[in-house]
């Protein structure tokens, strides 16, 4: 967008601009990285982080110093793995051992990979992968073990998927397969990060016992991307929407994009979103287990973006025609809301759940299921942050006041006293000014006694001749004074 078009856009959307400014001006990173003392390899890692990720690099750099490098290295390792998997120019025979053995390269000093085709966008990361390996080896052994384990699982998962894709049909059949695919590409990241957080003492260890929670964190994000990118993936001949869902609405996957199937496509879209919304409760539950602000921000921002994206995509036919995104202003507002505390984040989630609910229509075969899901999200939020408490209701019945009400009443009383005081003060000032003026008039010879007498006898107006005389006299004195002036 050029400057002029930007200027026009923000003039027409001042709230968007306000959100962007609010984020830029008011956001205080919980931890700020000091790049001065970075070693050469650390600098290289952060450079690649900026190059490979637009959305994640900012939040990673604000992470607690203890986790800053481990998470950065973790991200780069997975990105490296992804770059090998994505490259269709590498044949399966070469690719499979690379993916399965990637975990071992992490321990080979100076390992790098130059076999990617030139147009692969993150090729340079693998060409200079020795920097990542150096930093990997500088980390605490516990962190190394976690990253290695996840790399192992993900590498094998990707290799299995590549073999399957080469064999016959790579498209996702059942919902179970869909969940498994999402688990490999995103759920495992959730697991690795959770283990890092817990190892660093920045998250509740219970999060590891309930593996469903961190799985859901990854799945919700991944499913959001899959739903949003349907058109882009279709154009690239990739299909992630499970057949189990789309076949309920259309006979062939391509039919989703035919204009005559608009309603069917929308119903399919809402069933996909319904499937993703089932993870929301787990995500909020997970976020409640994070102890440290920067870790909370790191996890909460993508989740808030995801629910907002879900709302944007819900019953929006545009997703079948082009790639849609939330606006920058909305993204900034979401970042402001998701970098404070869980309660504010929950309000954001409730707000989007209600928006989704509002767009829901009985024409949709999943109307009731979506409605129930939105209700479930709202009930869950109400359970963690009750809007009313039983104890307060008990007090109300007895005619007593809750602490909050008592405080409010006290404040009201204080405000009232303030207002009375101000009124008294103003009254006193008015009386003083009026008194002074009358005193001055008396001193100059005003006959209040005569005025009083006239008033008490009922003459509220001056007699006509007196009034005329007074007017003439005033005019004469005025002209006299003018003459004197001259």
């Amino acid at each position, binding site marked *: 967008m050029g400057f002029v078009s930007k200027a026009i856009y923000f003039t027409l959307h001042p709230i968007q601009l306000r959100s962007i400014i609010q984020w830029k001006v008011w956001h205080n990173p919980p931890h700020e990285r000091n790049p001065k003392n970075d070693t050469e390899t650390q600098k290289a890692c952060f450079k690649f982080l900026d190059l490979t990720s637009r959305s994640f690099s900012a939040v990673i750099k604000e992470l607690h110093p203890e986790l800053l490098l481990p998470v950065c290295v973790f991200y780069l390792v997975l990105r490296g793995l992804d770059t090998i998997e994505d490259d269709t120019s590498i044949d399966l025979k070469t690719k499979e051992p690379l993916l399965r053995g990637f975990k071992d390269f992490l321990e080979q000093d100076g390992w790098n990979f130059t076999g990617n085709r030139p147009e692969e966008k993150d090729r340079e990361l693998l060409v200079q992968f020795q920097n990542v390996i150096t930093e990997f080896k500088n980390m605490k052994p516990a962190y190394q073990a976690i990253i290695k384990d996840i790399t192992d699982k993900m590498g094998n998962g990707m290799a299995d998927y590549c073999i399957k894709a080469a064999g016959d049909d790579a498209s996702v059949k059942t919902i179970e397969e869909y969940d498994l695919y999402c688990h490999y590409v995103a759920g495992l990241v959730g697991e690795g990060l959770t283990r890092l957080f817990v190892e660093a003492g920045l998250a509740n260890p219970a999060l590891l016992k309930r593996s469903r929670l961190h799985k859901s964190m990854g799945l919700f994000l991944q499913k959001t991307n899959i739903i949003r990118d349907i058109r882009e993936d279709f154009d690239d001949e990739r299909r992630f929407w499970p057949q189990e869902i789309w076949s309920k609405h259309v006979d062939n996957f391509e039919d989703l994009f035919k204009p005559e199937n608009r309603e069917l496509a929308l119903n399919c879209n809402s069933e996909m979103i319904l499937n993703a919304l089932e993870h929301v409760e787990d995500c909020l539950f997970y976020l409640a287990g994070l102890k440290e602000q920067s870790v909370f921000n790191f996890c909460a921002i993508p989740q808030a973006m995801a629910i907002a994206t879900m709302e944007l995509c819900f019953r929006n036919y545009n997703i079948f025609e082009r790639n849609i995104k939330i606006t920058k202003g909305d993204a900034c507002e979401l970042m402001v809301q998701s970098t404070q505390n869980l309660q504010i984040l929950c309000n954001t989630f409730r707000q989007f759940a209600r928006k989704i*609910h509002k767009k829901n229509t009985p024409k949709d075969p999943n*109307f*009731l299921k979506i409605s129930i899901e939105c*209700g479930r999200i*709202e*009930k869950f939020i*109400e359970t963690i942050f009750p809007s009313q408490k039983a104890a307060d*209701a*008990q007090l109300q*019945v007895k005619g007593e006041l809750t602490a909050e009400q008592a405080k409010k009443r006290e404040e009201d009383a204080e405000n009232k006293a303030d207002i009375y005081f101000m009124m008294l003060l103003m009254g006193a000032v008015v009386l003083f000014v009026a008194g002074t003026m009358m005193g001055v008039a008396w001193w100059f010879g005003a006959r209040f006694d005569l005025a009083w007498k006239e008033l008490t006898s009922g003459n509220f107006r001056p007699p006509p001749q007196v009034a005329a005389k007074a007017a003439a006299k005033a005019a004469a004195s005025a002209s006299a004074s003018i003459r004197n002036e001259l």
Partner: protein
Amino acid sequence: MDAKAIDDILASKKVLISGGTGFVGSATVRALAEKHPRCAITVIDRSPPRSQHALPEGISCMQVDVTCMPEVSQAGIVPGLADRFGRRLEKEVWRINVVGTQNMLDAAMENGAEAFIYTSTCCVVTDDMRSSYANIDERWPTSSNLLIYGESKVIPHGCLATAEALVLNASSDKMATCALRPSVLCGPGDYQLVPAIHACIAKYETPFIIGTGQNLWDVTHVSNIADSHILAVENLVTSRTAAGEAFFIQNNEPITFRDFCLAIWAHFGHIPPFEIQIPESLAYLAGLLCEIVTWLTGTTTTLSRGSVRDACAVRYAHGDKAREILGYEARIGIEDAIRLSCEEYAHRIGVELPT
């Protein structure tokens, strides 16, 4: 204790169900006869068995007025009357609920009953329609508290709350009592909820949304309520952990009142052609006007101040206590509940549902 052992215990018991020919009562009789076929069931009601509320074979029925001297066997289940009622009926309702419940309690104790279950309603808590009740639980005060503290406003379900308190206070080592508080009900034999909502189609009332349309409600399928009664009986004749306790019973799937209506209309093939949102305050005023008109003309209308408040109220409860103590889970989910209710109602009025 396993299911077999409980069944054996119940095989030797006699169960008396008062109001057993009604909506909840007959569902409870059917559920009990199915789960514990060896258990001896007796039904007492003011009305004889009705065709719309089928009872299983081999159930002995007696026509009894509980407000007179009741005849009570060894264990009792007493569904109360949880319906909205006109002001004229208030005295009568008070008599049935409070006097009737006291009579039943006295008779049950006299005859050495082991257990006594009272069917209350969630309205004993959600009575003050001006408040909203989001995710309430059993710690919330009932309107019997309101009576005790001398509230002067109208308390439509004060008598039920009073009756419930009578029952819960009567719980002792000899006779364990508990109370179940179902939410709004639907299901086969429902003559109030689904028919009233369905009637809106013919009256062209479906496009109007009163309030925000975002207020959540609990609705419960009647057979889930019946299940909860059986679970309560089983509890009170075995571990008795439910003695003296009240439980909210619902489907635990709150949905908005608007969506509940839309889903019913959709089953009958109707989708509102457009939607108009009416602010609650305006609707309340309209309700008042309608009430005046009906008072003058003596007709009936869908709209009243009460129905506006009802449509805008947030009322759903937390189901944890019933789950933990009684082991209650809704067997019929709300989606099926709505479908079954619509199918049964369509059959009853002779309408073919679109597929």
